[in-house]
């Protein structure tokens, strides 16, 4: 390894970014290399020079103005979900699904029955199917009661329109071809 590399290691040593093995290797090198020791002394002198002079500061007037602005401004607002907010949000989602489902069912009944009508409402049907399918996340706890309700509702809506059938065990619904 050349001295250039050890000189860079000396920079890293000052910031504690060398591994212990590298630090040991550097010490061994310094014991035998006067050029690198001179570089080490240069670094120390430069650091001493820079730290021996007063650090520049913004003028007191600027700092005072800034502190006034800070003290009079409103701190950032952080949204925190209240304990009641989670169930309320789930209830709202349920209501949206319910209304959407009713609109889908009544829309299909009013229009041409059967797969053709369903075909024009594929986005809505897809949404219901998506709600029906179990979440893919692995390692999650059991679904919340709200999530179970939403899935159950979606399943019923699909069965009502003949887009799914209930299996004998009653636990799963299966899509029939459109």
């Amino acid at each position, binding site marked *: 390894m050349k001295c250039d590399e050890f000189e860079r290691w000396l920079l890293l040593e000052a910031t504690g970014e060398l591994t212990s093995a590298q630090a040991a290797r550097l010490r061994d090198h310094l014991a035998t290399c006067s050029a690198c020791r001179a570089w080490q002394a*240069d670094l120390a002198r430069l650091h001493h020079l820079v730290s021996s*002079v*007063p650090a520049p500061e913004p003028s007191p007037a600027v700092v005072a103005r800034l502190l006034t602005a800070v003290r009079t401004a409103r701190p950032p607002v952080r949204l925190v979900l209240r304990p009641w907010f989670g169930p309320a949000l789930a209830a709202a989602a349920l209501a949206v699904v319910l209304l959407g489902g009713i609109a889908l069912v009544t829309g299909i009944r009013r229009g041409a029955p059967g797969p053709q009508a369903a075909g024009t409402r594929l986005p809505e049907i897809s949404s219901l199917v998506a709600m029906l399918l179990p979440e893919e996340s692995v390692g999650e706890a059991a679904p919340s009661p709200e999530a179970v309700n939403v899935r159950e509702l979606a399943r019923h809506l699909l069965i009502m329109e003949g887009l799914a059938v209930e299996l004998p065990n009653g636990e799963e619904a299966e899509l029939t071809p459109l």
Partner: protein
Amino acid sequence: MRMEATDEELLARYRAGDTEALAMLIERHRRILYGFILGMTEGREDAEEIFQEVWLRVMRKLRLYRRRNFRGWLIRLTRNLVLDRARHRQRLCAVGPASGDVSRDPSEPEPVEKVSPADMVQRQELAERIQVAVRSLPGPQREVFLLRENAGLPFREIARIQGVTINTALARMHYAVRRLREALRDEYTELRGVP
């Protein structure tokens, strides 16, 4: 003995509505930040304007802060502001030696410990010589030097801030030290006794 609050604790207090916590953060980081800004811009007026703007941005953008390294985030934010300003004004201190307004406003009180007037003058002169020497460095080298010596950042962080490899950051510091050693030869000679 009471432990000093960490940056993260002060940020949490500020988020909870304690504006004094942000004032404490400003006090804590002002020298580091201002030294960096002054080194990267053309004079006190520019530097003070940017210094204020940085903290106003901190107030506005704090919700985006997700890390555990407030100083690094602050320096990044400052650096972006300095670069934006340089681009906007076409001064581009990063492409060549700056003319350097390094004079201190004589109306300002000296923020240093008690020293004799003669010592104070001497130190001030030395500070100005160092500042001129640092300003004579090419932009990227100057930035590495300021981030290391002034802001005290490790090289990994400096490399991340500059968007370069750690070897490039080290090479820039290496170059800066060599250049400064030449520029401050007399001061180095006076310091021969320093290990």
